[in-house]
């Protein structure tokens, strides 16, 4: 235990110091050889990864298990800002099953991305800056998941936001990248505002920020919240529900849930490895993590919100999946797929029970599991896509085709990951997705039906992607510009991540690994025995198979069937390829209404009415000054007349007033 406690600060401090070091002196020190900066960053992150693994392992297998449940350790908690005696923002380190798992996820993906970037970003202007920001992101993400209080989480929440901004705008000369960065930041910021308001409401009633206090459960209630907020109403709604819904909205922003999803596809303007890390594996699941963190409160005190989350998740996953089917930019396809998969996780949480007594109690586990597996295969997909883009210098599907012969490693790893995301046995995606479907089935058949359909869609569009890239017909441009395999330092991460994807092969060795998640990561931290529901598993396999088959038919080779089908459902196709015009609606609201309407009106009002009033005062005195100039006419007798009238008027005033 002591070792863990002593090591834990490294996880936060090292990336932060790395950020400062690379950010402040990276440019100067490594001017001649920027790669050194990359190596230093990677080395630093390796240390972090090792420590994270060590801590996670120690926690799960040695220290964590208490009498009946996993314990929540606060390894350190430094007072950072004291608002009142009770409302204290601390920077601390909380170790519990989900944070330990997240440590593993983040450090793994981050390390892989660090290594990968050595090759991918080689020679880019601002290489040092890139690594500095990666370190910053790692720091922020680590801080987020180990937060001991909701405000610490908010702090790091903002920090991941800004590092995301910096990475998206990495190619700041490109206007599209700048626009995407702005969009990402502002949309998430907008959602963060709700998060903040939620925190304010929550802390106003509970008078604490502390997760341990907020999520403490006894007698089927989140005690503190129940005691302080139960029965408080605002405009006919339960205050608890409002607060928890607002907090969810914060998470929805980061996790790109409808209607805040618009920033994520654009965010692909950033360097691909950064997209893999931030916009696929880690940051975007922060929302899921947030809901998981506050799960007891949601479950016991705001179950209605949980239901809403479920439907929002289901809708988003369907919505994103449909759009994904029509996109031609491979990173966008992946982005919509990410949205869709994260929505899955939300659905899983929404349908979950708290303890094994409740129905669908495996939802929570499934959600976290899916988070884990998704992080790995999606990172792998993105990195693979990076290799491809690196090779063909384009994001568009049309520039690709039949790449399997040029890039075998990318082909295999990409294929494995596609299988995983499609939920094909025996890859990791199958297990996690299956559990989600089981939970949904147990809880709500509608959700189940929706999610099952989405599973089919997922399989379809992922294999559409796969076939379009690696099969299909060859792009004639390749004749004079042959795509080639990526360098080793880019391929190794692909391989490592695809190994993680295949981890279920370990199941063949031992049943323990199948129970890995259900025994350790559950809502009540107690653990339960997981049993495969084969009915549903087979059903979902079938659905996925159908999806793959359709993709096979349509995209294995160049043919006119896809266009024909698109022509049949033209309306749907066009609106889906335009992402259902959500961006346009946003643009209309921001440009026309907020900027063109409110801001311009206020600015006008300020210049012409408020300032105009001040100027009017000045103008009046000036005009008055000119108007009365003739009083001083220079005529002696008028002076005397004024004198006389003055005397009379004053006398009358004094007498009669």
């Amino acid at each position, binding site marked *: 235990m002591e070792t863990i406690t002593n090591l834990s600060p490294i996880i936060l401090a090292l990336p932060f110091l790395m950020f400062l070091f690379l950010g402040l002196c990276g440019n100067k020190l490594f001017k001649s050889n920027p790669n050194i900066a990359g190596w230093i960053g990677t080395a630093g992150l390796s240390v972090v990864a090792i420590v994270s693994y060590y801590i996670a392992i120690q926690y799960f297998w040695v220290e964590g298990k208490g009498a009946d449940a996993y314990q929540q350790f606060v390894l350190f908690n430094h007072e950072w800002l004291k608002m009142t005696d009770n409302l204290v923002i601390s920077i601390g380190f909380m170790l519990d099953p989900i944070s330990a798992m997240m440590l593993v996820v983040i450090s793994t993906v981050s390390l892989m991305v660090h290594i990968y970037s050595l090759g991918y970003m080689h020679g880019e202007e601002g290489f040092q800056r890139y690594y500095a920001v990666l370190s910053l992101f790692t720091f922020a993400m680590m801080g987020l998941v180990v937060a001991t209080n909701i405000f610490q989480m908010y702090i790091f929440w903002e920090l991941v936001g800004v590092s995301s901004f910096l990475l998206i705008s990495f190619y700041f000369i490109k206007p599209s990248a700048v626009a995407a960065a702005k969009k990402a930041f502002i949309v998430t910021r907008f959602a963060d505002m709700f998060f903040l308001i939620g925190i304010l409401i929550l802390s106003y009633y509970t008078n604490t920020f502390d997760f341990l206090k907020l999520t403490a459960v006894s007698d089927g209630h989140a005690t503190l919240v129940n005691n302080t907020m139960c029965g408080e109403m605002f405009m006919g709604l339960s205050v608890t529900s409002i607060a928890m819904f607002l907090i969810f909205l914060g998470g929805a922003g980061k996790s790109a849930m409808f209607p805040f999803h618009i920033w994520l596809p654009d965010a692909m303007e950033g360097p691909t490895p950064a997209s893999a890390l931030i916009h696929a594996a880690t940051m975007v699941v922060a929302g899921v993590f947030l809901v998981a963190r506050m799960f007891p409160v949601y479950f016991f005190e705001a179950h209605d919100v949980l239901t809403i989350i479920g439907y929002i998740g289901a809708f988003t996953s369907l919505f994103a999946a449909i759009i994904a089917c029509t996109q031609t930019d491979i990173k966008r396809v992946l982005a919509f797929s990410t949205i869709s998969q994260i929505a899955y996780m939300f659905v899983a949480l929404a349908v979950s029970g708290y303890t094994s007594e409740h129905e669908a109690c495996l939802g929570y586990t499934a959600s976290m599991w899916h988070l884990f597996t998704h992080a790995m295969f999606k990172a792998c997909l993105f990195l693979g896509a990076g290799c491809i883009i690196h090779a063909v210098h384009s994001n568009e599907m049309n520039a690709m085709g039949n790449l399997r012969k040029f890039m075998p490693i990318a082909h295999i790893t990409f294929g494995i990951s596609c299988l995983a995301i499609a939920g094909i046995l025996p890859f990791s995606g199958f297990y996690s997705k299956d559990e989600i479907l089981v939970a949904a089935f147990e809880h709500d058949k509608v959700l189940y039906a929706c999610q099952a359909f989405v599973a089919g869609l997922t399989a379809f569009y992922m294999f559409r992607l796969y076939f379009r890239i690696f099969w299909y017909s060859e792009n004639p441009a390749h004749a004079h510009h042959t795509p080639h395999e990526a360098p080793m330092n880019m391929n190794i991460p692909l391989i490592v991540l695809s190994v993680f994807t295949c981890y279920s092969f370990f199941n063949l060795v031992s049943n323990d690994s199948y129970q890995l998640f259900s025994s350790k990561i559950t809502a009540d931290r107690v653990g339960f025995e997981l049993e495969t529901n084969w009915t549903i598993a087979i059903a979902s396999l079938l659905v996925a198979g159908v999806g793959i088959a359709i993709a096979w038919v349509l995209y294995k080779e160049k043919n006119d069937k896809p266009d024909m089908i698109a022509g049949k459902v033209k309306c749907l196709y066009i609106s889906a390829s335009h992402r259902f015009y959500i961006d346009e609606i946003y643009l209309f609201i921001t440009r026309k209404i907020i900027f063109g309407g409110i801001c311009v009106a206020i600015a006008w009002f300020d210049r012409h009415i408020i300032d105009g009033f001040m100027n009017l005062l000045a103008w009046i005195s000036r005009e008055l000054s000119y108007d009365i100039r*003739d009083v001083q006419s*220079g005529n002696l007798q008028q002076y005397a007349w004024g004198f006389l009238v003055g005397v009379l008027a004053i006398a009358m005033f004094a007498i009669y007033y």
Partner: protein
Amino acid sequence: MIPVEAYLVVSTLLFFIGVYGFLVRKNLIGILMAVELILNAVNINFVVFNRFLYPDHLEGYIYSLFVIVVAAAETAIAISIIINVYRKLKDVRVDSINELKN
């Protein structure tokens, strides 16, 4: 006996005749003459008040004496100034001293 008010009526009328003259006279000397009327009206007041109301002391009496003296001094200066104006402007009409204004 003639009441004080009767004298007051005379003096007040004279005073405002003087004021009227001051306001309408077109040249500076005429204005100066109007001032003399005003001062005479005041003098009548002082004398009458002294004579009828407060005959114990000669306050009003002496005051009117001094007013006469001061009026003389004032007139002397005023006339020399008017002559000065005439010398500079070749004109003593009120309208002519209208350079300084606004």
